[in-house]
């Protein structure tokens, strides 16, 4: 017989393995989107948090969590959204950063502690350089502040001449 604690551990593993629909090389646990898996009055409550206010992936993640946990025999699953504390790219795990880099996406630097002053220079990189995930060169330039998903910006490597994506530090 499976104990409640063992069953919760299984549920945690299943939830943690759910891939992000827009960054399928990493899981929701890697990204820090998965906040909690708990048993509440005989049902399973999974708590997730959005990366950005309008991120359309959150709905798909909730759906995927329901499907996978349902298929594993968890009949009563509630997926809850938590807004506070606000998601930070600092929550991306070391494993998540490695997987992103292996897939050609530069992981974020440490998020700014506060909003800071408005940057007034057009050319200089404001913080430490973003390293090319393909060749490791630090000689890179931002080509666009935004990218194909809410969480990414576009860069180009001057070393290997390849474009790449970078997860924004927030």
């Amino acid at each position: 017989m499976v104990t409640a604690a063992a069953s919760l551990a299984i549920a945690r593993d299943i939830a943690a393995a759910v891939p992000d629909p827009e960054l399928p090389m990493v899981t929701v646990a890697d990204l820090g989107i998965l906040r909690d898996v708990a048993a509440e009055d005989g049902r399973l409550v999974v708590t997730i948090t959005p990366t950005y206010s309008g991120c359309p992936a959150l709905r798909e993640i909730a759906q995927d969590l329901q499907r996978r946990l349902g298929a594993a025999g968890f009949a009563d699953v509630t997926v809850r959204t938590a807004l506070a504390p606000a998601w930070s790219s600092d929550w991306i795990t070391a494993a998540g950063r490695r997987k992103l880099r292996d897939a050609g996406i530069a992981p974020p630097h440490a998020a700014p502690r506060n909003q800071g002053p408005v940057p007034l220079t057009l050319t200089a990189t404001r913080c430490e350089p973003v390293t090319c995930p393909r060749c490791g060169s630090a000689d890179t330039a931002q080509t666009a502040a935004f990218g194909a998903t809410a969480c990414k910006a576009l860069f180009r490597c001057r070393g290997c001449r390849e474009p790449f994506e970078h997860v924004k530090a927030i």
Partner: protein
Amino acid sequence: MTEDEFSAYQSLSEETEDHRWAFGTGFTDPLEGIDASVPPGVDAQALAAYCLMLGDDALIYSHRLQQWMTRMPELEEETALANIALDLLGQARMLLARAGLAEGAGRQEDQLAFFREEHEFRNVLLAERQDADFAELAGRLLIFSAWRLALFGKLAASADPVLAAIAAKGAKELAYHRDYAAQWVIRLGDGTPVSHGRMQAALGAIWPLVTELFHRDAVTAALPAVAADPAGVCAEVDAVLDTVLAAATLRRPDVAPMARVAGRAGRDGVHTEAFGYLLAELQSVARAHPDATW
């Protein structure tokens, strides 16, 4: 990507009960599962009215940005605007949902966005203005995001925990929007004589709408611990704008504020002519198919 029977895309082709027809659809209440009780001592109707103001600012401005899609000079800038519009739409959805829950009359985000009349919208006039050119777009985005960021910075400590959470999250997004806009204002202002002239002219056209942003209103006054006093962020926003304008070699325009109509403006439901056309476009699909789900 390896084949995965549980892929998020696989699940789209299956029959479900939640009306999903494409990625990201099947919308549910954006505050589902969040404790939405109104804290003791807070006037629930005033809280609803306040969230409506902030939600309308984001909804209407997001729509104006979406109207730029397919018209931007470069793909990268179009992607940027689409992302900014999406962030604001996300903020609008949560704020309208919060307004509906606090109001307690059963109105959800869709009813509030699509089935209110012009005079029931509470956005500031800056949000509904149509940009005449790219310089106006950059200038308006800088002013709007610097102002909203200052408000959200204060609201992160609001006595309403839901509003505080929305603001703390949104502030990160707004700081990024502000920095993006500032880069363009500097690039244009400190660019060629032509770009400088057009950026300066754009500021002159937008500036009459700035005074309204810092106008004290009755709703905010009724919520001392919950709302952010707009007059209280004026100095902070001025400092940001002055810094950017100086770097961009631009002058702060010396123009009279747009006259209020019998003392009333956007926060009172008095809008400009352009707003009616915007709203007609925003609401037409929902009104033609009132029972549709998405």
